[in-house]
């Protein structure tokens, strides 16, 4: 923590988080994020450093995602809240699946899950006459009926366009309803970077739930999605005398009020963690661990050492690393022999795309193309994402990079041209298109899949399994037709990008 003063100075200079506003600024405006680019690793890094990186739009686009899905999905993973989506019914269509997922995560842990996900069912009349009065009634009714410990009201394209003043409704009801209540501004048209939705949920938590610290505890806030490595991480952290607090899945509102009391915040994903981590650091002085993520060997060790310096236990960390290296590194070296010569393409979010690339390179796999769903030129601390610098210094090749928001036509064009041995994705409905075209694919839905030494070994073995029997995708690809014209496969994958957006 010797450079603390420097940190503070940087924060003032690059302040992106404003907790006095009710709505979060988009990633485009806050972090210089883009959704359209084609080039390579070195060019991307140079452009970021020189400040010349500009977004490019496309003349053909395919369905993507919106802020609301991320924002409300995150909040609905808290176990004792009500999420009210002030939107037409279709926008709440995801609620069923969201609740199923979170109910199962809670059941796995054995904790109660009483959260409700409601929609206000806005209709044509509401677009003419407005619906704030009905919204108010629904909020009151929701509180009386379900007795949640907090209420989050999500805004939508429709509520945004017709100018519903949800903030005023929230203010009016604060006296009437005895639990925290917050507007979550996540209109689907607001940002082309749907990860802004993560920030919207964090903003709601920071502004309406987190309280001033009463006493410091020995807890490290751990931002993640599904807690799948919970037991493993509790055990690891016990070596250093600290406990992880995983969020938001399976947390209660009461637990979240104490986020300000933690020793530090870490995040499994840079995209997911930047707003809450930096927000807690700026407002409450809880240090945010900003190293590369704990995926793969180098990532895990760098991350552990950063934690060690934050909690002031560097020796404990070194002892742990030494012990674990002895167990796992020989096994990882062994499996690497079998992976040698494989070529990979990745399509993932802005942090995982580059972090998993690092892991694959550690395993000796050649990464030929990285498609990043968006790209953040900096994080909320004002710094360039650390995984980019790492790759510039350490990547054995200057691989191709595109920033493409799940644009399937570009991915299939790339796979057709580069014919990799395997494609990696993390978003439902993306990898299936690779196998339809005959490329083996591995879906990394579990964010802890490549976590630490054990996870890296497990990941390597899963890759081997994936390419071992390819009958499913071979048969499928041979018997179905894909929708793209032959013309498209003859074009360069970036040929539908237009000029830069000023």
């Amino acid at each position: 923590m010797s450079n603390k003063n420097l940190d503070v100075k940087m924060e003032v200079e690059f302040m992106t988080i404003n907790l006095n506003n009710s709505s979060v600024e988009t990633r485009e405006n806050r972090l210089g994020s883009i959704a359209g680019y084609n080039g390579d690793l070195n060019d991307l890094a140079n452009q970021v450093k020189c400040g010349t990186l500009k977004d490019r739009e496309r003349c053909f686009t395919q369905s993507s995602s919106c802020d609301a899905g991320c924002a409300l999905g995150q909040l609905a993973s808290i176990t004792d809240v009500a999420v009210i989506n002030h939107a037409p019914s279709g926008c709440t269509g995801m609620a069923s699946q969201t609740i199923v997922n979170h109910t199962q995560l809670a059941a796995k842990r054995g904790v109660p899950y009483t959260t409700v996900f409601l929609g206000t069912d806005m209709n044509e009349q509401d677009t003419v006459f407005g619906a704030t009065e009905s919204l108010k009634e629904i909020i009151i009714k929701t509180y009386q009926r379900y007795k949640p410990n907090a209420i989050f009201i999500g805004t939508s394209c429709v509520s945004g366009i017709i100018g519903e003043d949800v903030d005023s409704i929230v203010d009016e009801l604060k006296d009437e309803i005895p639990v925290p209540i917050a507007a979550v501004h996540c209109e689907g048209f607001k940002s082309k970077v749907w990860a802004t939705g993560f920030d919207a949920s964090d903003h709601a938590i920071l502004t309406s739930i987190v309280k001033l610290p009463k006493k410091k505890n020995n807890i490290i806030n751990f931002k993640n999605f599904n807690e799948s490595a919970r037991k493993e991480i509790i055990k690891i952290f016990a070596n250093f005398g600290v406990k992880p607090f995983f969020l938001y899945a399976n947390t209660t509102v009461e637990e979240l009020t104490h986020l300000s009391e933690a020793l530090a915040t870490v995040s499994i994903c840079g995209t997911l963690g930047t707003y809450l981590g930096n927000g807690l650091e700026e407002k409450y002085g809880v240090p945010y661990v900003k190293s590369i993520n704990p995926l793969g060997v180098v990532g895990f060790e760098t991350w552990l050492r950063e934690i060690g310096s934050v909690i002031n236990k560097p020796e404990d960390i070194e002892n742990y690393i030494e012990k674990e290296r002895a167990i796992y590194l020989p096994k990882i070296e062994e499996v690497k022999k079998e992976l040698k010569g494989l070529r990979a393409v990745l399509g993932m979010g802005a942090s995982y795309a580059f972090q998993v690339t690092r892991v694959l390179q550690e395993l000796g796999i050649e990464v030929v193309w990285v498609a990043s769903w968006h790209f953040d030129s900096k994080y909320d601390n004002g710094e360039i994402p650390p995984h980019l610098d790492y790759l510039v210094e350490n990547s054995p090749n200057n691989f191709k990079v595109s920033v493409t928001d799940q644009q399937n036509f570009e991915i299939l064009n790339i796979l057709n041209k580069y014919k990799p041995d395997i494609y990696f994705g993390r978003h439902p409905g993306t990898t299936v298109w690779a196998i339809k075209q005959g490329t083996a694919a591995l879906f990394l839905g579990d964010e802890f899949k490549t976590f630490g030494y054990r996870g890296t070994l497990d990941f390597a073995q899963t890759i081997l399994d994936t390419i071992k029997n390819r009958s499913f995708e071979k048969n499928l690809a041979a018997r179905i037709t894909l929708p793209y014209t032959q013309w498209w496969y003859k074009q360069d994958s970036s040929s539908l990008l237009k000029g830069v957006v000023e």
Partner: protein
Amino acid sequence: MSDYIERPRYQCALGGALVTITTLDRFIPIVHSAPGCASSAEGAASTGSGYWGSTYCNGRATPSTNTLEKEIIFGGEERLKEQIESTLSMIDGDLFAVITGCMTDIIGDDVRGVVNEFKNAGKPVIVAETGGFKGNSSKGYDYILEAIFTQYTEKGLEKNPKLVNLFGLIPTQDVFWRGNLIELKRLLNELGLEVNTFFTPSDIVEDLRTASKAALNIVFSDVHGIAAAKVFEETHGTPFISVPLPIGPTATKEFLEEVGKKFEICSNKVQELIQKENTWYYSYVQNVGDIYNDIDLQRHAIIVGDSNYSFALTRFAVEELGWIPAYVAVTDILDVDEKENVKSRFDIIPKDLRPNIIFETNTSEIVSSILDDLKSTDNVYGDLPIAPAFVLGSTLDRTLAVEVNAGFLSVSYPVTNRVVTDQGYAGYKGGLRLTTDIFSVLLGNR
């Protein structure tokens, strides 16, 4: 809006239109809306319909203008034009349909004007305004069918007196639409009719172009597809009948007789078919009669589903399973007339077997109104007054089944705990499958 909805049992109008389009190979959607609209609707429909998943050009491949704030301020017509042009060169399709979302409907883009430019240039593009705030999937199904019938289906074709079109089963909203349509087509073929099902994997877009040849449209619903069938009649002169979804021998017999009469098919031929199908059906059911009696598989039924399934399943439980229906929850959002139509269907159920009918879409309200009613009922069995019970509903209704200690099978949307491919519950084959599935649940722990 007047009240909240919990975890909707349908998509919005855009979603209903979108899944109707993408069910059919080479029928390509061009969604003119915000980036998340299509994936939200398709994600829900895909998982909610027993993991329907990706088709020729849906999911991550769905062309969408992904309109943002800029288009709200400056209008989205230029962007739409560009997207249609690029889609026509990118995607190999037979028919393209521009469908709109809330935001583009509210800002008032002249989408018809844009699409007309392409139509005039001979491109196969149609358009439907399907802003999500206009209604649910049912409305979207009607809107896209109306667009097809008025903009694509050829006018003035000579009628084929033996051709029928089947409507009313909204793809994915009816989780078993494929299997149901296949069985209904099989039966009508047996009567000597030619049948357009439109939305099974074996169907082609061309059938929609020549659908106007049909002598009759059969709408298997009191609600879904009725408005579109009226437009069809006005545009192409083909009349329609609205019939309930027939599940099992009794309902299917009635259906076949009605169609037989409509087409003036010799009644012997109709009765022969019914006889043959009955023989087939009972040659299997007689075998499971043993276990049905030996461990008493009669149940008190609670049925939760849309207007199509709530009645069809109740009838099946009463007429084929010998069960006692206790409660029926109809989960569609219906107007007063539609509610009356749906309710009157239940008049054919004998009075002493007629269940309590609730019109309610919210899962927890359904649970609480049934539990409240049960608490106020005399308890003659020592347990719950409806023990032993069985819930036929959506996966959302599993909680209700747990509350009343009932067996449970998911049939109505959303079905997320099963994989559905070619299964269907309509007709004779479907009736036997439903019997098989229900009894398999009851014996599942053996």
